[in-house]
């Protein structure tokens, strides 16, 4: 039986890597992918607790998180496409000002 703390530390590591990705990368698509990575780390935590507490609620919540992540990825990518058409770049530091 793998101890609970092992899973929690792994999940925290993956979450931290996702946060690093959001903070230091300057490509919108990679930022969106890092957000997905963070969501997956949280999913892992939910499933781990669902197993260790013997309740199905963790898995149901993960189901909903997956649906919401799908919706968010779709809308995020649509926004990225719309932005790319106008600015021809995916660098967030070029988009800091509202109207230029």
């Amino acid at each position, binding site marked *: 039986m793998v101890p609970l703390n092992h899973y929690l530390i792994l999940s925290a590591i993956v979450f931290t890597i996702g946060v690093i990705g959001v903070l230091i990368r300057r490509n919108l698509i990679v930022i969106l992918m890092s957000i997905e990575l963070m969501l997956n780390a949280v999913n892992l935590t939910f499933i781990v607790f669902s*197993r260790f507490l013997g309740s*199905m609620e963790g898995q149901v919540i993960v189901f909903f998180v997956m649906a919401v992540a799908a919706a968010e990825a779709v809308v995020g990518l649509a926004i990225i496409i719309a932005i790319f058409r106008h600015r021809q770049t995916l660098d967030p530091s070029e988009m800091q000002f509202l109207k230029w």
Partner: protein
Amino acid sequence: MAPPLIPFFVLAFLLVITSLMVVFQRNVVHSALSLVAALFLIALFFIMLHAPMVGVLQILIYAGAIMVLFLFVIMLLNPAALEQRRGVWWWFGTVAALILGGLLVAVMTGTEPPPDPAAATALFGSPEMLAKSLFTDFVLPFEIASILLLVAIVGAVVLAKREP
């Protein structure tokens, strides 16, 4: 190292490596494929943790549909120029993220762990149990999630449409 720990450590090591590749690869397509590998490994974790239904759904939805969408957008947009060198703030960002990580680990492992779980029945994590929960306790979030997906589809089509 006890036998049940070996698969865990192998998978955990691979997961950390693929996550690092997602964040630190210069080529966006390689990043996306590393994320596919990371999602697949997380699905394997789910299956190890007696959640086969959610694990297979993770492969089906996340690795099979969402990441295909990412790859489509990357291929169609074809961002030609490599991104510029990271600004001076990247040290700051990394340190802040590492502090966050340290806090997370401290808080999550500092509390009392729950007692060892009873052996899971064959039904735990099966489609029947998930469906029972989903359609009795969580039916309202279920319906709202379906409306959310509809809204997302319509919104994405409107946002990405070309001006005629």
